[in-house]
């Protein structure tokens, strides 16, 4: 089947322009050398390796990118970014696709990964740093497996890997500000 390129995808070019603007990266500079993919540590689990994501954005295949496994599970190791000969921060591009997918409520197939990511961000945002106990309980409840890994709890507590009381950090509002700026507004 022929692919649909940006002029025929409603809003396709707009989303790409949005990604370029918000990320500050030049998607159009990619010349498909594939160096990002060559050492991508996550590609074995992706549906599209990073250079394909770049190409799909160039062609305006926005739906495919926003719904891709790649956009859900790339974990920003940034190996791609360090290798790109065109100085494109590829991970940053994928990260912005991820953010736009979240903004649009696109859940994708990797529900748990998404859940973890959102819970993690929410947790950091609220406490200023990670509060593990809360993160774990939240994830267990939201994934409808409240007793998941419960047997580990005594061990974790004994080793002081986790604290019941939320951490207190100074200048929590600074963290809030960072979140606001990255999201380009509050949500």
């Amino acid at each position: 089947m022929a692919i649909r390129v940006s002029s025929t995808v409603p809003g396709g070019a707009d989303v790409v322009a949005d990604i370029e603007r918000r990320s500050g990266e030049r998607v159009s500079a990619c010349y498909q050398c594939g160096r990002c993919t060559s050492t991508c540590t996550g590609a074995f689990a992706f549906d599209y390796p990073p250079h394909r994501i770049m190409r799909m954005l160039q062609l305006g295949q926005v739906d495919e990118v926003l719904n891709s496994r790649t956009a859900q599970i790339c974990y920003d190791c940034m190996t791609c970014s360090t290798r790109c000969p065109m100085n494109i921060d590829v991970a940053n591009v994928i990260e912005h696709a991820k953010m736009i997918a979240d903004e649009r409520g696109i859940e994708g197939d990797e529900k748990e990964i998404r859940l973890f990511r959102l819970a993690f961000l929410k947790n950091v945002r609220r406490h200023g740093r990670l509060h593990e106990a809360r993160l774990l309980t939240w994830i267990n409840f939201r994934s409808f497996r409240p007793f998941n890994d419960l047997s580990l709890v005594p061990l974790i507590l004994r080793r002081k890997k986790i604290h019941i009381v939320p951490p207190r950090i100074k200048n929590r509002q600074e963290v809030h500000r960072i979140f606001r700026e990255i999201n380009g507004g509050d949500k």
Partner: protein
Amino acid sequence: MRIGVFVCECGTNIAATVSTGKVVDAALSMRDVLHAESIQYTCSDPGQRAVIDAIQKKGLTRVVIASCSPRMHENTFRRTVGRAGLNAYMMEMVNIREHCSWIHSDIDEATDKAIDLMQKGVARVRRQVPLHSTTVPVTKRVLVVGGGVAGIQAALDIADAGLPVTLVERGPSIGGNMARLDKTFPTLDCSSCILTPRMVEAAQHENIELMVSSEVEQVRGYIGNFDVDIRRKATCVDAEKCTGCMICQEKCPGKAPDEFNAGVGQSKAISIPFPQAVPLVAALRKEHCRLFIKGKCSVCKKVCPADAIDYEQEDRIETEKFGAIVVATGYELFDWRESYPDYGGGQYPDVVTALQYERMLSASGPNGGHVQRPSDGKEPKNVVFISCVGSRDESVGRPLCCSVGCMYIAKQAILTKEHIPDSQSYVFYIDIRAGGKGYEEFTRRAQRDFGAIYLRGRVGKIYPSNGNLVVMGTDTLSAEQVEIDADLVVLATGFAAAEGAGELARKLNISYDQYEFFSESHPKLRPVETTTGGVFLAGACQGPKDIPDTVAQASASAAKVIGLLSRGELETSPMVAAVNQMRCTGCFKCRDVCPYGAIEAVELRDGREVANVIDSLCQGCGVCNVACPPAVISLKGYTDGQLIAETMELLR
């Protein structure tokens, strides 16, 4: 005073943005302007005829042509007014294209500006006086800098036309990079078999003087008459006596890097770079010689049967006169090591450059053409080629294409199969650039007939594993990651300008780009000329190119030189400085600043010493005008009166 104004439409280039009719009207309303018209293409034959007609019918004495850049057509229009019987310098060009229509979009504003520019031209031409050019004799000798295939070709072509040529080469032998190549694409003829005869021919040609181990020290003068200081570097060997027996090299205990073999293998402190070297004369490198480092050795002097060794030898400077200069200093390979730590940054012995591989393949190479990988001397079976290393890579500041890498990789893949029949070559590429005649077919053959596997993608990383190398890349056509176990990795490293190219350019007063490749005067119409008259370019010093293009450009340069020197004398521009000697105070600030040494002191009858401009040396740069405290030196055609009139007209 009878002035005519001609406003060119340049098709729609000007007329679409400037309303030329209004410019004509504005001209006609000016004092002394007897004639004005717009012409569709003034430079065309009918256009020039219209100008001539108007001059003759209306008896015009001065002309303003409002059109394009004078760089384009000043000479054309000077000839036009000349044909009409006026002095050629009674014409002033005004640029309403590059300076106006091309850079503006608002028609009213552009038209206003065009009118201003035209009025400025009229103000200036009003104060113009007839000028007459003089001629200077030219020196019918040519300097060629750089003895690669480009320099050799240019020197032979010029010498065959009967002009004496001095070929200056920095290294101990001519031949350049081509002498290092094994076979050459796309015909696979042996590089030294086709180059060596040309090198010998150059050495034996009655009109060519070879100066190896020599460099250009300083250049003075101008087109037709350059004075060049050439440094003849001390090699501690008397070239007249040395017979090329190589006994010194055999016995010398001082090890030195083998530059000719691109660092594969080792050489000696005194050596002849390769058996076919021209001239076949040894040279000693002091920085590696035991006598110069430790103060004790002199083995070569003892063994030399010709008594050619002379440790006392010192650099000499020779000054010679030339009428034209061809620059052919070629290229070096981009040093990849610092920029590519992910390819080992030079730490893995079995990652080599294509030039090193060329020496490994060559029958005259260190292993006699048996391909052995550097780490353990094993014959490699899996050979991986990586293109565009230090090319097309903005992250290392090298966005340019090397233009030959794709071709020499295909060649080396073919040669690998010929040398090692049970080998397998893998080629990582981004695009295959094979535009020349027979080139596409050649890269196809590498794949179809010699089994090279081409993978479209870049390599991300190389790491050592169990005595081999693992190459991690991508095949973008299948959108998959690939990993290859390689015995040897060959990098197609990009082209860089020869070391010191920028410095040489400054000596020659020619321009160069950010990579220090020399700039041609016009990319299409003046591809072998530089911005300095009498200096021409040949080969890879102007930008990456292969041998056919290099040779073609060298012959083109030769043709330009021969054309230039075929005339016995050159017409000089009459737009030179002139001193009002009555008011000159004799401070000689002008002589201090003149870059061309064009100002001399003369004694007037009353005994005063004043400045005098030597017309044939003055290039009309105008620096002296600014320096002169009482403002009594000025440039003909650019007098203070003219410049002030122009400015006043604009400010009105």
